[in-house]
């Protein structure tokens, strides 16, 4: 296959959408946190915890959507922890985030080992299966790419719309954006910056965990250590890439995933035989940086990102 053939095949785009799905959830989660002014570096660990919690819940007998809910709640719990440290106490968001990642990851692994001490291959569950949407899936190219995915992928796309809607069309969204922009303006209008930021971090972390759960409930059907494999960090980049806007971030996620799907396929082409495979694996990262450089001038960073707010101080 040559590149043109790859890029015009529905299977390729279907793969891109699948690869993008967990990133979309987690990117939306991170975006919510950052819009409220909190950089959440706990994302990688929260995804791990979500992947595990969702899977183990289903393994223990819950339905799949129950697993998603458990993942969400698990993410919220770590979000609460992150929030307590980073919002009212205003501690360094770098440290808190890295601490939460370390804690969530190790706690997950520990729990896994305590719950399943003797298995050499983790048990499997029955994961979400692709659901073909009638009519829509018949559209050439787009149909099979977009409308023959698992329900969790559809949920990811719906979430983007929902996040955009809440951020731009509701009083709550306005408050979240303002909290990341000028906490003092929020406080002066009688709202609690602490409550808004805590809420954003908790809910955002919930979505990160669902992104992790996508890996065990949709992309795959069991849990492995290290399976999140840096996807959380990518989402941090995607938020910046998306200029803190849900729609653009969605595009970014799909673009990144498309590069990933492309590199997988290029490894099999004639180029693949001569170019070291590492170069292919690098491709999505390199192109992300390039894209970032191209659009750097335009992005408007939330002005109060990483700036703690303490009422007592001026």
């Amino acid at each position: 296959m040559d590149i043109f053939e790859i890029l015009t095949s529905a299977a390729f785009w279907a793969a891109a959408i699948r690869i993008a799905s967990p990133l979309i959830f987690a990117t939306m989660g991170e975006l919510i946190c950052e819009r409220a002014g909190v950089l959440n570096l706990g994302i990688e660990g929260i995804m791990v915890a979500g992947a595990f919690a969702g899977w183990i819940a289903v393994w223990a007998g819950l339905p799949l959507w129950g697993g998603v809910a458990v993942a969400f709640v698990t993410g919220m719990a770590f979000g609460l922890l992150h929030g307590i440290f980073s919002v009212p106490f205003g501690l360094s968001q770098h440290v808190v985030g890295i601490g939460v990642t370390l804690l969530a990851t190790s706690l997950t692994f520990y729990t896994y080992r305590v719950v399943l001490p003797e298995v050499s291959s983790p048990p499997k569950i029955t994961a979400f299966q692709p659901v073909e949407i009638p009519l829509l899936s018949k559209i050439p190219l787009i149909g099979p790419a977009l409308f023959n995915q698992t329900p969790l992928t559809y949920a990811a796309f719906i979430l983007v719309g929902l996040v955009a809607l809440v951020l731009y069309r509701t009083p709550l969204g306005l408050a979240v954006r303002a909290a990341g922009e000028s906490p003092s303006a929020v406080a002066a209008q009688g709202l609690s910056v602490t409550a808004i930021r805590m809420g954003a971090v908790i809910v955002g972390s919930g979505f990160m965990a669902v992104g992790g759960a996508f890996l065990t409930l949709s992309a795959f059907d069991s849990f492995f250590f290290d399976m999140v494999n840096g996807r959380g960090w990518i989402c941090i980049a995607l938020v910046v890439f998306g200029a803190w806007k849900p729609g653009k971030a969605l595009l970014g996620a799909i673009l990144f995933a498309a590069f990933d799907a492309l590199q997988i396929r290029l490894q099999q082409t004639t180029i693949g035989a001569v170019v070291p495979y590492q170069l292919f694996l690098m491709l999505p990262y390199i192109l992300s940086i390039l894209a970032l450089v191209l659009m750097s001038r335009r992005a408007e960073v939330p002005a109060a990102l990483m700036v703690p707010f303490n009422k007592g101080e001026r």
Partner: protein
Amino acid sequence: MRLEPIADPSLARKLLPPVLAIVGSFLVASLLALIAGGNPFAVFGAIIKGAVGSKFALLETLNRATPLIFTGLAVAVAFRAKLWNIGAEAQLYAGAVVTAVLGTGMLQWPAALLLPTIAVLSMLAGALLLLGPALLKTRLGVDEVVTTLLLNFIFLLFVSYLLEGPLKDPMGMGWPKSPRLIPEARLPRIIDGLRLHWGFVLALIAAIALWVINTRTTLGFEMRAVGQNAEAARFAGMPVTGVILKTALLSGGLAALAGFSEVSGLKGSLTLDISPGYGYTGIVVAMLALLHPLGVVAAALFVAAVFVGADAMSRALDVPSYLADIMLASALLMMVLAILLTKFRVVRD
């Protein structure tokens, strides 16, 4: 609630919160050990024994602290100038690569000449790696958190390529690792038979040097000014772009020294896993130290002791070794909070 600075913290105020933080993380570890069927009362003793209980344990703690001091300093110097360098991991590997390239026979010089040369060129490599993101930041306003973060992935893949390609040890039986360093390129050990090497001393020197730079030189003054308020610094006639670039060079160079020290002092060859995330842990170390170079040494020792101690504890109690990371994470979180509470009081209103 709201935080109020305490004008004159008492001794108890300064000591109690950190002590409580340590006790708290011991409690967390004990509870988890209990859940996994271990003896919770043995936790404390096992950690202390594992971290500082013997000459071996103590030196291992120092050993693990060594790269953390370097990366901690690298992050501290950058963060002070508000250059958010999340890429110490890649810069560490840059230093490691240079050490592996030059130290495996390319330069057949006596140690007294070879080691400093490798160290300096390693620093240069790390510095150059951060220079890119720094230039993108100053010239085009590209967010360096993202560029340095992504460069970690890219550079690690590059190292992987080197180790499976040009840098691969022909005698390595196909394993992706570099050839062994020649003896002249090895940092000698401080005590024969124990892994602690002169890299640790170099780290201490680096910390003191950075402290001197920060407090006594114009560059230190400028880096701080640019970090606190770049607009005022520019107005006052400081070369802001130049200062950011110098900071990047210093930061990348320090992180690269970690790679140099690990390869030349500890491992003797380059592999893809010489760092289990020292670059990222460096961020924690730096923040725990409130970006103070000497504090970095203390924070690195603390982090190393907690990890080494807890890791040994997990084996002594025969509970899953992931407990070590849990203990480290909870100790970190509680300690940053404790440090805050030594200076602020929580007021309800």
